[in-house]
């Protein structure tokens, strides 16, 4: 495979930034599909916006927006089969929601509540997102190895950012995918920045896709703001993986339109001009333009969509805000399958503390 540069072609793309069709759309991608993708991206953008607002108003903790990367998550989510497994990173809200993770759960995780990871249904065996950058890639390889060893026709999608490609464990995992020919598709969300560190300071290679060459797997670069390109690349790679033909590294080129997280201030380290140029490539806008121009999306449809989406997100927010708190000892109860004697003692201690503090609250508080 190393002989051919075809693996790392110029960016794969179908719909360009102006909403023009660059090449015939792949099988399975029709107007209904495009409308559905568009709707999902709008939905996620609304969720994202709301999450930031919740954080700004003290109703949520640090949140990593996926603004600008909605096409990646949506393309992946639509390409996956139910019995595939997702090993996400922390900007995969779009994929997760397509896999049945509720918006409320997305908010719950960033609201600091482990119950947000209690995925059900299709997502029941998906991983929660991984905070230590890169570490999730070997989980994904392990899952793929389990699939291969059981001889099932399933595959794993594992995601990470451009910065993550500097981590050795990402290389180790992809190397295993190559040598064991594992059914795994790795999608690098190249949003050009790792907090304040630009892509050019992470690695000396021209593309991130070509890192596939070092591990003997397929590699390609796609326009990560083109949901069709992401979908097509991931679907093709997943089919290949399920057929036992091995893994693929997909570099989805995009841009982080937001701050790194709500705790970050990107104006400190990047030009407003660069960001505003990046908006020209907005994945949502281009799809809207395409749908408009081709007569498959009316202002009325848009209005209706916005209303539906707003309602959906508002409901998720209110469910999130009204969720009763966890039992106080939940953080002790799930460490092991059964609480160990030391943990039982520590739980007792916790409950006594809480009773003490409650009593003190009633009277003259000496708590923290």
């Amino acid at each position, binding site marked *: 495979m190393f002989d051919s540069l075809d693996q790392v072609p110029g960016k794969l793309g179908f719909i360009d930034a102006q909403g023009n069709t660059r090449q015939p759309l792949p099988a399975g991608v029709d107007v209904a599909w495009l409308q559905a993708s568009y709707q999902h991206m709008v939905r996620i953008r609304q969720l994202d916006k709301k999450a930031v607002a919740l954080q700004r108003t003290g109703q949520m903790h640090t949140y990593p927006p996926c603004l600008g990367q909605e096409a990646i998550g949506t393309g992946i989510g639509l390409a996956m089969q139910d019995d595939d497994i997702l090993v996400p990173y922390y900007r995969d809200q779009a994929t997760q929601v397509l896999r049945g993770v509720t918006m409320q759960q997305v908010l719950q995780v960033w609201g600091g509540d482990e119950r947000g990871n*209690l995925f059900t249904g299709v997502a029941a065996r998906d991983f929660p997102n991984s905070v230590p950058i890169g570490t999730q890639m070997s989980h994904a390889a*392990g899952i793929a190895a389990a699939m291969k*060893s059981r001889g099932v026709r399933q595959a794993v999608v594992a995601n990470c950012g451009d910065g993550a490609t500097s981590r050795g464990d990402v290389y180790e995992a992809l190397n295993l995918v190559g040598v064991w020919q594992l059914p795994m598709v790795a999608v690098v969300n190249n949003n050009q920045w790792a907090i304040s560190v630009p892509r050019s300071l992470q690695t000396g290679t021209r593309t991130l896709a070509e890192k596939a060459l070092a591990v003997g797997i397929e590699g390609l670069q796609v326009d990560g703001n083109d949901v069709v390109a992401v979908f097509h690349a991931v679907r093709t790679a997943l089919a290949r993986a399920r057929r036992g033909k091995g893994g693929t590294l997909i570099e989805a080129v995009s841009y982080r339109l937001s701050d790194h997280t709500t705790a970050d201030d990107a104006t400190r380290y990047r030009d407003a001009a660069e960001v505003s140029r990046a908006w020209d490539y907005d994945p949502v806008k281009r799809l809207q333009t395409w749908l408009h121009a081709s007569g498959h999306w009316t202002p009325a449809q848009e209005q209706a969509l916005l209303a539906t989406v707003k309602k959906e997100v508002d409901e998720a927010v209110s469910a999130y805000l009204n969720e009763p708190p966890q039992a106080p000892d939940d953080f002790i109860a799930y460490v092991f399958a059964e609480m160990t004697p030391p943990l039982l003692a520590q739980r007792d201690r916790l409950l006594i503390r809480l009773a003490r503090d409650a009593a003190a609250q009633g009277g003259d508080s000496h708590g923290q």
Partner: protein
Amino acid sequence: MASNRRATCKDLQTHDVTLVEAVNLALRRALIDDPDVVVLGEDVGTNGGVFRATLGLREAFGYKRVIDTPLAEALIAGISVGMASQGLRPVAEIQFMGFINSAVEQMLCHAGRLRNRTRGRLSCPMVLRAPFGGGIHAPEHHSESTEAMFAHMPGLRVVIPSSPTRAYGLLLSSIRDPDPVVFLEPKRIYRLVRQQIEDDGQGLPLDTCFTLRQGKDLTLVAWGAMIHETLLAARELAQQGVDAEVIDVATISPLDMATILRSVEKTGRCVVIQEAARSFGVGSEISARIGEEALLYLRSPVQRVTGYDTPMPYPSNESLYMPSTADIVEAARATLETA
């Protein structure tokens, strides 16, 4: 060849085995009993592991269940987490504990947290095995005892056998445990003694110390290879008319303090023996807990016999580092002389 033993295992044959052979027997038993068990690591396949702990398993169970990995310890731990999350029961070998360090991140951040993070939705029933400890004149980094590092990590069990019987029973229980276990094998005593083991698949509990010798005058607490010197010390003390109780901690974390405290309440004197560097080790936890929970019973300060706060020396000086029987006897006598 060991690969022929499969049939005989089924017949509950009794085996006369060393500690490392007991590990092998337990792995074999687990592979037979549970199709989800897989053994993986560097050189565990054809080579049977550098200490032969996985000898014959590849021949008996094939490539899919006994897997040579690339040379990458973070990866070995990480894929084990992934496999375990999907219901496999990976038993991964780290070739020497000195090479476990790149796996620390996976064990601390993921193996020990997956269940808690997902509130029970996913779990991580994996075992990370590693030979540990010094005294075999191995090169640098082949003699480490860093069990304290793992004991401090929430969500992990740390289990250390000190005899063939306990190796067999504790490893089986570790493999069957629904949560991750770091299983450390004292390689200095891998081939020290043989014991009769009936291959009946019987596990040993992971929530208890083992009292290896009853005694009333003082309590000696140890684990792993140091159990050997500790028992020798107890014998020597007996010759001097001192009746020492010997406790093998076995499961370092979560720690069964009840057994230790009961003993110290009886004897009023305690020596904790560890090979690891002196400060911030497992012995400190045990000593602290005794001080906190049995202070009034203590007739003398708890003593620790330990390694030094230095790297394990290159082999020509490793014996200077290692706690000896004489050190234990001396510490025991010191506890007897006070108060």
